[in-house]
């Protein structure tokens, strides 16, 4: 589907003086399931944020000939870069079909938006089959299981015809069977697209990764095949030397800026009346 590769060169992201990503380079090609791993605070998610335009960054991230950095989010998406989020983010009030229909919509003429949907887009049918959600067509996305929501997100990326799929912890919270199904799904999808997965789950990584990049404290620690990375003593030190950091990552003293939110980064919280709009933003969704 695409021959273009995603090439990230010397990526820098800084939040109010705190360097979250400091010169990261990697690439990803169609046909491989590319993994980005590292302990909490390593800058994995921030990398994805930077590539998708959510966080301001310097350096370069190119998809084929196109520079992605500096463009607004929706323009980057239109170039074929799609992503998922740590917490499944689907439109809970809409049905699975409606979710997918919206995802498929950006290729439509604007006038088509004003018409009622009369049939199901072939690409949606295909994506439903691929992700095993065909039976859930009319189910409101809000009552899907956690795993199904993640698959719905992936299905949305498929119908939106993303050339690059950036997946942020897609198997977190899934059962073993679901993980396997997800991994196999990713392998199928990767045949024609670039798939980049951010993960904590080492087992999942070992089973499905073709190539891996390890980040640590905003820098590339190591990269190569699974075997190569596992053999790297520096990686062992980071993961094993700190006594199984992967499982206790939540307790990590290194603040995971992207997860907690910008406002609580130490540099900022010292300011004045120090209101963090984060609480308000977080609670803004209405119950209904």
């Amino acid at each position: 589907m695409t021959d273009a590769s995603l090439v990230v060169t010397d990526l820098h992201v800084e939040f109010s003086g705190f360097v979250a990503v400091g010169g990261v380079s990697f690439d990803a090609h169609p046909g491989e399931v590319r993994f980005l791993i590292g302990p909490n605070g390593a800058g994995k998610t921030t990398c994805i944020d930077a590539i998708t335009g959510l966080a301001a960054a310097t350096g370069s991230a190119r998809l084929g000939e196109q520079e992605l950095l500096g463009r607004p989010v929706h323009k980057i998406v239109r170039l074929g870069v799609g992503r998922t989020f740590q917490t499944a983010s689907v439109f809970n009030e809409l049905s699975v079909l409606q979710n997918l229909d919206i995802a498929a919509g950006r290729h439509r003429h604007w006038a088509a938006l004003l018409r009622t949907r009369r049939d199901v887009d072939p690409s949606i049918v295909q994506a439903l089959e691929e992700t095993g959600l065909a039976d859930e067509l009319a189910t409101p996305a809000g009552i899907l299981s956690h795993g199904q929501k993640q698959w719905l997100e992936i299905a949305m990326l498929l119908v939106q015809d993303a050339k690059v799929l950036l997946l942020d912890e897609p198997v977190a919270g899934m059962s073993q069977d679901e993980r396997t199904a997800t991994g196999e799904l990713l392998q199928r999808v990767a045949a024609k697209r670039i798939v980049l997965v951010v993960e904590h789950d080492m087992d999942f990584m070992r089973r499905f990764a073709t190539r891996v990049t390890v980040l640590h404290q905003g820098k590339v620690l190591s990269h190569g095949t699974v075997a190569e990375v596992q053999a790297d003593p520096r990686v062992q030190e980071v993961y094993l030397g700190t006594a199984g950091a992967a499982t206790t990552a939540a307790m990590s003293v290194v603040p995971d800026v992207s997860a907690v939110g910008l406002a609580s980064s130490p540099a900022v919280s010292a300011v004045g009346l120090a209101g963090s709009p984060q609480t308000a933003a977080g609670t803004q969704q209405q119950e209904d």
Partner: protein
Amino acid sequence: MTKLRPRLSLFGIGAFALLLLGVAPLLLTDHWLGNLGKYCCWAMAAVGIGLAWGRGGMLVMGQGVFFALGAYSMAMHLTLETAGDGVPGFMVLYDPLAPLPAFWEPFRSAAFTLLAIVLLPVIVAGLLGYALFKRRVKGAYFAILTQALAVALATLISSTIRETGGDTGLSDFKYFFGFVLDDPANRKLVYLITAALLVVCLLVVRQLYRSRFGELLVATRDAEERVRFLGYDPANVKLVAFVGAALMASIGGAMFVPIVGIITPAEIGAAASILMIAGVAFGGRASLFGPALGAMAVGWGQSSLGSTWPDGWTYIIGALFIVVILFLPNGLSSVLARFTAARRSPGEQPAAATATLQLEEAKS
């Protein structure tokens, strides 16, 4: 809620149209027909608020601004029609020799006036919405800013007595596009036009809600960032809803003038804008009929209860806000929906109730 049973809603609109256009003129006295027409004007603005707020999540607290654009466009035309070739009477008072202000001049033309009623809100809401949504102003900020605009416009009109009639407003219209307004037959005609326009507004939002745009709008309301990651610019989605809402408010305002016979800054300021919201919240912000029926109910309450028990009416409106928002965030229509849902599938909870969105938190 988002799944409108297509035929049912269409029958609903049909029945509503029949009541407004067929039954009401036969049963009601001229006075109450006029009042009903007034409620229809508010209902049009309310339908727009339902679109912008209920479906789009934008709490538009300044719809008075757009109501004013339509109303004053119409009122200026009718004033000039009444004044004939001369300068309107109230202007003479402050400066008898000065000519008609330049911005009044084009409103002598009926065609220009009708065009202005449609285009002015589109242009103003378009510019304003573009500026605000591109800067990602939303939530309370958006609400307060729009309300501040309504206050500013009302103050501006109040303070420009010679140009706009000030606090007294514009009134005493004799003609409506060539028809004598005092004639009961003509007043009925104006009412019918208004009611028909309300029905058209309902048909338009019905189509919007059923369309892909409607789904996209709800998606944008619930998870703006997510929509962005599907390649849409949420600003544009919201802009369409905002402009639509403005247009409906403007048409409502325009018809308010011949029906009520007067327009003043108080009808467009903070209190009026909030009262419009009250009806929408009461009826059900996201439902098809809720905003219109809610606005009409509030209007009726003001006419009847406000008459028999004026002190109590203020308490009722206040309590309405509290009780409805606290216990029935989706208004009375949600009670109805819950009732029918419970009958159809007992035990199964509606998706809306269980759904909790985590999206904004999950943005990174």
